[in-house]
């Protein structure tokens, strides 16, 4: 087993607020790591620092052993790291299919071949497959901005997989998604994880989802790492119950 993602001593503060305070952890290849913690404990900020969306105040991030701190999100993405967002982030005026093609196109060919090649970069089939999986078939040509909340959330997740990533950071993928669909989503994640040895880090407040999907769970509180362990260990950890789960 090799570490796909190594995070060491990441810090991020806004003014006086320490949103992320010296967090270190590794993610092994093929792992599904859950990330939980109370609202405002710094989970999303940690993602943003790892992905280059925010410049961390301190610390270092490695992907596949290579230092990536300071890289831009697009560069990281082309190294095979993709993500989803907590708040809805789609391209509202483009159709669902266009959204998905867009999500994959920069992983095809070169700048030049993309200019001169086919207009869909050869991705229509892949996009439609993804659409089929997320049960968005009847919406394929509709503008993404007109989708319901849960549908946009699913589209956002679908977009993260279009480029065939090795490491995916998902920020609350389950929020607003119907339970039946969520079951499918979970299976899909698990199968991608199995078949392509893709690695996931998942922020989620839905405990059933996290505990049944993840191999390991990490808990943050007030910017710091509070606990790390198997789902069962975490569930039994009194500090976690106190700070996060409630009774």
């Amino acid at each position, binding site marked *: 087993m090799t570490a796909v993602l190594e995070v060491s001593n990441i810090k991020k503060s806004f003014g006086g607020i320490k949103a992320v305070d010296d967090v270190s952890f590794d993610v092994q290849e093929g792992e599904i790591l859950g990330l939980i913690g109370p*609202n*405002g404990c710094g*989970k*999303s900020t940690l993602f943003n620092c790892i992905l280059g969306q925010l410049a961390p105040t301190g610390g270092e991030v490695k992907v596949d052993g290579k230092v990536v701190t300071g890289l831009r999100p697009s560069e990281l993405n082309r190294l095979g790291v993709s993500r989803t967002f907590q708040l*809805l982030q789609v391209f509202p005026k483009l159709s669902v299919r266009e959204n998905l093609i867009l999500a994959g196109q920069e992983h095809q060919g070169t700048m030049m071949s993309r200019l001169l090649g086919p207009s869909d970069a050869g991705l229509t089939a892949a996009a439609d497959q993804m659409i089929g999986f997320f049960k968005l078939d009847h919406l394929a040509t509709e503008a993404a901005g007109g989708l319901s909340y849960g549908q946009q959330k699913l589209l956002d997740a679908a977009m993260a997989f279009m480029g065939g990533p090795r490491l995916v950071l998902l920020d609350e993928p389950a929020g*607003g998604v119907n339970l039946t669909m969520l079951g499918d989503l979970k299976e899909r994640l698990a199968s991608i994880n199995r078949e392509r040895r893709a690695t996931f880090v998942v922020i989620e*407040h839905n405990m059933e989802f996290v505990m*049944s*999907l993840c191999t390991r769970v990490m808990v943050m509180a007030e910017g710091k790492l509070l606990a790390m362990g198997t789902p069962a260990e975490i569930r039994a950890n009194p500090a976690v119950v106190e700070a996060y789960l*409630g009774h």
Partner: protein
Amino acid sequence: MSDAILDVQGLVGGYGKMTILNGTSFSVPAGSITTVIGPNGAGKSTVFKAIFGLLKLREGKIVFKGREVTGLSQRELLTSGICYVPQGRNIFPELSVRDNIQLGAVVAGRDIIDLPVRIEAALDKFPVLRKKATQQASTLSGGEQKQLEIVRGLLLNPQLVLIDEPSIGLSPLMVQQTFNILKELRDRGVSILMIEQNARSALEISDYGIVLELGQTRLVDRAERVLNDPRIGQLFLGGAMTETAA
């Protein structure tokens, strides 16, 4: 079943030429928590928008406390006692947290003498917000923004609360907290109409459940019956979720 505080009758409408609601009807018993569930894109949020006058209806009417309120302005609906907490991100990003909350009492204006007291009480329930009262709202985390919306929405003394998926983005503890607040409100006689995908926990605190699909009411029943209905469970509650995980 007590008297209905809200009666939704045969709503037909949608976005542009697209029809989303195909004759949706149901009623909300006074003093209850009623939860609407259904697949993504069923039209749940659309129903709420219709009730709150944000969607032009082609047919149907909405009766609140025996009075027809179809087509009233949001201000009028608020003064008559309905409040609405929508789905998604609904804050004023450049205003401070406190200003955002205070705006919740705009309709009542100076009528509420105890406004500061109420704000304090609300902040007691959501202590994070107190800590960040002077911060710009856009800098809050996703869950904190949701809390802010809930507090703001409940600042007035509503008789009917429309709340669209309050649990999105909230930690389990905060979900419990929010549901407790809703229960407290019900116990004070306030009626609550809620949409939830977190359906199990929601139905557990609810009195009634409504299943919506393709813009139509498929089932209206007592909450525990909806929760235990095997077909509903299969279709909308993910079957037995924990079992499929291996």
